[in-house]
Each structure stands twice: as C-alpha cells, then as structure tokens.
C-alpha cells in the first residue's frame, strides 16, 4: 500500500553555484562548487554520501545533443563506486533528481544521498538554446519551434481569451519581469543583477512576439545540490533541517497543442502536479497556506499561467490579484519568485529545479543572502519546475517546510 511521503525525508544541506556566464568554469567545476557547499552546509564529507541522483539534460556533450552517464558527477567529485543515477526531464530535470533521491530514502535503500542538478549552457558559441534537435525527434514536425516561439503562443492566446489589447497584455507581462529583476538585483547568486523599468521591458528587442528580451530568461551556467536523509536522522546533521512535504509529478499526454479543446491559457501538467502535491501536503488554500513559491518562469507568461494553474490566484485574475495588489512581492500576500526567478537566475536546464528549492530552504532558515529579500516567517514553500512546452509538459511540484 502506497504511503504519503510527507515528513519522511529531510533536506540537511544545500549548495548553489553563482549562476551566470561562467566562462572559466566547466561542468565539473560547477558540480564541485554546488556539492562542496551542500556538504559544508550539512557538515558531511562527500565520502559520507551513499548515492547520487544527477539531473542534467545535456551533460558534458551539449554540442552533440547530450549523452551523460553518472560518471559525469563521479568523476568530478571522485566518488568511489557509489551509485549515480542520471535523470532527465528537460527543463524539469532538477525536481526529478530530488524526487528520485527522496524516494530512495523512503524505501530505506540508503541513509544519506545527494540530488544534484547541473547544466553548462555557455559552451555553445551563440546566445539562446540550440536548435540541434531540429530533425532529431521528427524530421519536419514542429521544426524550428523554439522555447520562446512556443511559449509566446500562450501569451497571444491569453491576451485573446481575456480581451486584452497587445499593450495591456504586454504591460502585465512587463510588471512580472520588473519584479523578477528587482529581486535578481538583490541576489548575489543571480545571473542578471540589474533592475529594469516597465519602459525598458516594453521597448526591448522582440524575441518571439509578444515576448521581448526581458520576457525571456537568460541562458546560463549553474548547478545546485541537496543532501537528504530520513527525517528521523536529520537532527544528527542540523537543527534547522527542512522536511519534504510533498511531490507532485505529472507528464501530460503531450498532444495539448494538437487538441481542439486546449486553449494554451493553462498548464495541464502543472494543474495535475499541484493538485496531487496539495493533497499530499494537506493544503486546501494554496494562496493562504503557502508562504512563498518559486515557480518556473522561463518566460514572463510562464509565471502568469503557472500562478493561475496552481491557484496562487484565480484563473484569469492574475492582473487583479497579483500585479495590481503587488501580492507577489516578498511583503505581499503571495510571494512568487523573490529569488529573482529563472528570469534573473537564467536557466541552466538541469539545475533550476534544485535551485528553486535552495531558495525556499534558505528562506525557511532565515538565511536569504540579502536581508531585504527575506520573507517573514516562512514555514511552507513550493517549487515548481517544468520541462517541455505548452501542450507537452512534464511538471514537478516540490513542497518543503518546517518539520
């Protein structure tokens, strides 16, 4: 009989590299940087770790489209013959590495494990993500469909559904990006650390109409790691450990954009993942009960739609309930992405899911690097991580909180 994972596993240490264009760091440097910080934080040595879940989309062979075995991490950290499992769910990889590590502990396979997400994106030779996969999965179907191009379809659909003019719609999205940059400027580990104005966002070069430069997250290098044990052992490592409250994981059937009844204004996998996570964590009213949310804002429209799909505000009411009231700022009713989000951190594919959890973990411990960003009294937070594109998402929702 399956059991709830709630409060069975604890995070006792976390690490996160500086995110950015790390011209002088290779993927092994970043693995080591994140793992070392996590070990230090937990007060353990790497040789104490019994198994690792390595989350990466491309691993070390980005230019060839990605093959990475567990030796990517073992060779960086010089672990000696312990299991390293490579997991991959595109942009939703980080959440999956945490989930795998957690369930291995619940199954009592190990006592102390690590989840580590990493990506080295900036060895490609150009900005943006590669289109090396054109023709890799399907020779012609969906050819030239990029992340911005696919997410932008959701923005156009959202504007049309709620009768927003292009100007009105763009302005709502711009408010989101202004908030993200506001917090990115206050986060030393973020990639983009400059505040921007509404006008700058609105007047930025177009990437994929209606998404401009500041509606899109950066392409970045980074890694993040967590050390986990069963909750009953957590006190051995630290007092202020943080418990796993729930995982929600959902892979959509994948034919959303091809279904006549899908209108692009909600993320169905996110709805399913959030619903099961809320049920496991015992959350009835997410907006009231969650103290903060880190969600997958690879694009401004992604923050808007994920907020609605996870009931952080009512469907179609983002403007009234988030933007107009500034509810999503750190002192607001429903703080969202006050780390700066993917928007300011950039999005090293495999690393982002763990990085979101890192932010909540530190906030719960009152250790936000810059005090002005610290949310008062965080007990329960949600990290939302998704891979794919509108109509074909895999989504991981991780809820963590005080024991």
């Amino acid at each position, binding site marked *: 009989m399956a059991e709830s994972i709630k409060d069975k596993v604890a995070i006792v240490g976390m690490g996160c590299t500086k995110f950015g264009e790390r011209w002088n760091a290779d993927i092994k440097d970043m693995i080591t940087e994140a793992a070392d910080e996590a070990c230090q934080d937990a007060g353990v040595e790497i040789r104490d770790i019994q198994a690792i879940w390595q989350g990466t989309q491309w691993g070390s062979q980005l230019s060839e489209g990605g093959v990475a075995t567990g030796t990517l991490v073992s060779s960086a950290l010089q672990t000696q013959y312990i299991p390293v499992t490579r997991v991959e769910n595109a942009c939703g990889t980080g959440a999956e590495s945490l989930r795998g590590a957690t369930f291995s502990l619940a199954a009592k396979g190990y006592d102390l494990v690590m989840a580590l997400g990493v990506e080295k994106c900036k060895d490609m030779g150009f900005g943006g993500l590669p289109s090396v996969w054109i023709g890799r999965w399907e020779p012609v179907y969906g050819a030239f469909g990029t992340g911005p191009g696919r997410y932008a379809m959701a923005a156009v*659909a959202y504007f049309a559904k709620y009768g927003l003019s292009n100007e009105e719609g763009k302005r709502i999205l711009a408010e989101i990006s202004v908030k993200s940059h506001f917090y990115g400027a206050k986060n030393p580990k973020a990639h983009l650390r400059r505040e921007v104005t509404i006008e700058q966002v609105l007047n930025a070069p177009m990437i994929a109409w209606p998404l401009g430069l500041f509606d899109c997250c950066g392409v970045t290098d980074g890694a993040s790691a967590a050390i986990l044990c069963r909750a009953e052992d957590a006190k051995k490592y630290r007092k202020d450990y943080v418990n796993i409250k729930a995982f929600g994981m959902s892979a959509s059937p994948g034919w959303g954009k091809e*279904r006549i009844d899908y209108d692009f204004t909600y993320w169905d996998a996110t709805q399913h993942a959030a619903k099961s996570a809320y049920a496991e964590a015992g959350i009835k009213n997410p907006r009231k009960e969650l103290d903060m949310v880190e969600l997958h804002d690879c694009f401004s429209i992604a923050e808007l739609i994920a907020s609605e799909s996870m009931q952080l505000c009512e469907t179609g009411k983002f403007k009234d309930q988030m933007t107009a009231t500034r509810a999503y700022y750190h002192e607001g009713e429903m703080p969202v992405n006050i780390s700066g989000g993917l928007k300011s951190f950039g999005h090293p594919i495999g690393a982002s899911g763990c990085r979101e959890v890192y932010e909540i973990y530190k906030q719960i411990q009152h250790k936000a690097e810059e005090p002005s960003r610290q949310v008062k009294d965080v007990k329960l937070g949600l990290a939302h991580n998704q891979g794919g594109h509108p109509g074909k998402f895999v989504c991981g929702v991780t809820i963590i909180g005080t024991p």
Partner: protein
Amino acid sequence: MAGIVSYGAYVPMYRLSRAILGQVWGGGAKGEKAICNCDEDSITMAVEAGTDCLKDTDRKSVDALYFASTTAPFKEKQSASFVAAALDLREDVAASDFGNSLRAGTLALRAALDAVKAGSAKKVLVVVADCRLPAPNSAGEGALGDGAAALLIGATDIAVEIEASAYTYSEFLDVWRLETDRFQRQWEERFILDEGYEAHMRKAFAAFLKANKVTAKDFTKAAFYGPNARSHQTVATALGVDPKTQVQVPLFDSVGNTGAAMALMTLVAALEDAKPGDKILFGNYGDGTDVHALKVGPAIEKIKDRRGIKRHLASKVMLENYGKYVTFRGLMQFEETPQTRTRTALTAMWRDRNWVYRCHGHHCKKCDKTQFPLQKRCMYCQAEEKFLEEVPLSDRKGVLFTYSMDERTAVIDPPNILGAINLDGGVRIFSQVTDRDVKTVKVGMPMEMTFRRIHDALGVHNYFWKCRPARD
C-alpha cells in the same frame, strides 16, 4: 475521345517589382514578377496547381499523374511521386516526370491525351511548374517568374475538346543549362528570337492552319508561349490575329516568363474568360513547337470557380527589397553558426509518409474526434489504433487560434511564425505559418494548408505541410 475536364493554376504570393531590380542594377523595366517563397519549389507549386485543378474531383479517380518542369528539385529521384502523394492520389497511379524542355508541359499533355484515348487511364492529371533561377543582373532576372498550371484530362465531363494538334521537334539551340549549371545560358538574343522562336512559331502556325483548313479569324483567342512581350507580339501579328481582341497575352508584367509552365498558364487564363462555343488556338515553343485547336464546351461553366490565374494574381505581397529576394533564392552566403544545423531521418519520413506527405489525420470511431498527426491512441479518448481511421485533411479550411512570431530562429525568412489552427470538423493543426504578411497576422484569420519544403537538412529536400492565411 479525350479532352480537358478541369484546369487549375498557381502563382506564388510574393511579387518582386522590377523597379527594385532597377534600383540595384539600373535600368527601368516595368511591372513585377512572381517568385517562389523560400519554402517553395516546382514540386510544391505543382501540388498547389494540382489541388486547384482537382477541386470537386474525387482524388481516387485519377489514374495517372504527369509532372513537367525544367526545374525538378531532384536530379535523381522523381518529383511526380511526391506530387502524387501530397495530392493523396492512389498508390497504383502511374506517376511520370517530363523535363528538360520548355515544352515539357505540352508534351506531357500529349501523353495524357494519348493515354486516355488508348484507354490505359480514364483520368490523367498534368501538372507543370517551373522556377528557373536567373543570374543576378542578367536579362533573365527581370524576365523569369515562377508559377504552375494543371489540366485534368479525361474521357467524360469534357469542358474543352482538343480538336487537332501538331508537333515538331527542333535541334535549335537557344537557351540551355548544362548538368552543373545553376543559371540559364543563352546565345545572342537577336538570333534566338528571329531564327528561333519567331521563325519556328510562324512556320508551325501557318502549317497548322493550312492542314486544318482554317484561318486565324476562326478562333476566339490565340493563347501561346512567348519569351517576351515584343517577340510574342511579332508572332501574333504574323499569325494575323487582332492584338486587341484575339490575343491572350502571357503574364509578362505580372508573373514573368514561367518557362515550361507559361503556355499552360496562358491557356488557363484564356479558359477563365472562355464561353461555351469559343475556339482557342493554343501553341507552345521550345525544342520545336506544338499547336492545338481547342473548342470550349458548356461544361466550362462548372469549373469557373478555380483560383486559376486571376484569383492567384489578386492575392499578393510585394517583396520589400532585393536582399530578401537573393536570400529566398539562396544567392547569398551567410555566416554559419552552430545554431543553424538541422537534421533529418529519411527512415522517419518514410514511416510517417501518410501524414507527412498525404496530410492524413485520424478520425476516432469511438469518440468521433479527428486529430493530426496520426496517433497510436486517440488523443481524446485513448481508444486503440484499431478504432482510428485515416482521413485526408489538406483540403480543410480553418482559422488561426493562436500564434507567435519568433525573430531569432534560424529560418530563411524570419520571423518564424508558429500557429495553432482549428480546421473545419474540429481538427487542430500545429504548424509553421508561411506566405504571410507579418503586419496582418491575427487570431481568428482564415487559414488553409499548403505543401512546402521545410528544410534541406543533410542534403535532401524535406517536405511537409504548413498553413497559410487563406489566399481569397
């Protein structure tokens, strides 16, 4: 008995004003010419003309497909097979390519008439398309245009009878391309017009009229090929037709010289205005001549709703500048970046042929929903494959549900527009949007499907369907 049952044509949406060529190279040529989009070629244009021609015709009733062009996209590998698949014709159709001559189209027409007369086929579709690439700053750059025409030849429901035909061949060398030539070559223009086109056509027309005991005055219209307006006029005058009332002028100023497609496009233009009882003198030139006497019957009225030449001409977008034109034609060398690499897998193209080429979707017999592309399970009710039946979707009209315009993707003509299109019958198609005026793309606009060249990864043309704003 064999004759024309239906006609169709295609003119690409993009037009290049000759004034733009004047700005770049000097000179003051008038008018404009039609040019292929960067995702079009003779195969895709033939599909368009064939689709137009087969309107209201059961695709399964076509017994043979003859494709004619001097610009077949493959030197080795038949074009007709792609065209037949994209038109969703039966697999036991005889598909043949005709090439190498500006008369390839009318020679394919003769083969079609012979097949129907001999009884080896009841209906034969003749499609002719050309998109010859002129060298920059050549006379051809202003003169040559791109286009296609199609005729359905059959034994019943004949709209236009072909009463008499005569053919000659000639070893005369005027224009040519060698196996490795990208651009057309030609001998001195005075020689190839005087001794070539004009002399050959004058002689062919005179012999034809004499043999059939008719005069030029017996025809309502004369529709025939010409390399340019002046030379065409010279032959018309020699033929003795009234230039004001009797001559169907080829589309020099609106489309340009479309090579192998020109004579049949001119004929289609004449048929669009024809009335029952009209007689048309039809001629073509290239490596010889052919001349035909056509008689229009009452059934012509039933096929007047084709897009043909007129409606295609009315729907157009002017190309903004010469840079765009040379980019479309691949005449520029651009920086190569790691981003621009594309791949293909011909194994996958073969496995997926029924939706990649034929545009088949699945109709679910359990939940009655139709979907694209073909599925392993119904995407609505998860019914197993045995409940899914293939249905053709390329003819369905739709509206644009949502879209985006990607400025950064490495496509030849940015922005790359992605669209979700709701087709009639509740089918959603996810597709690239081509032939679009970026300024006018909006949610709710009428859309239709069009067969295009998606990319040339690994040195092979990869075709698939896109959608475009409806052209009328």
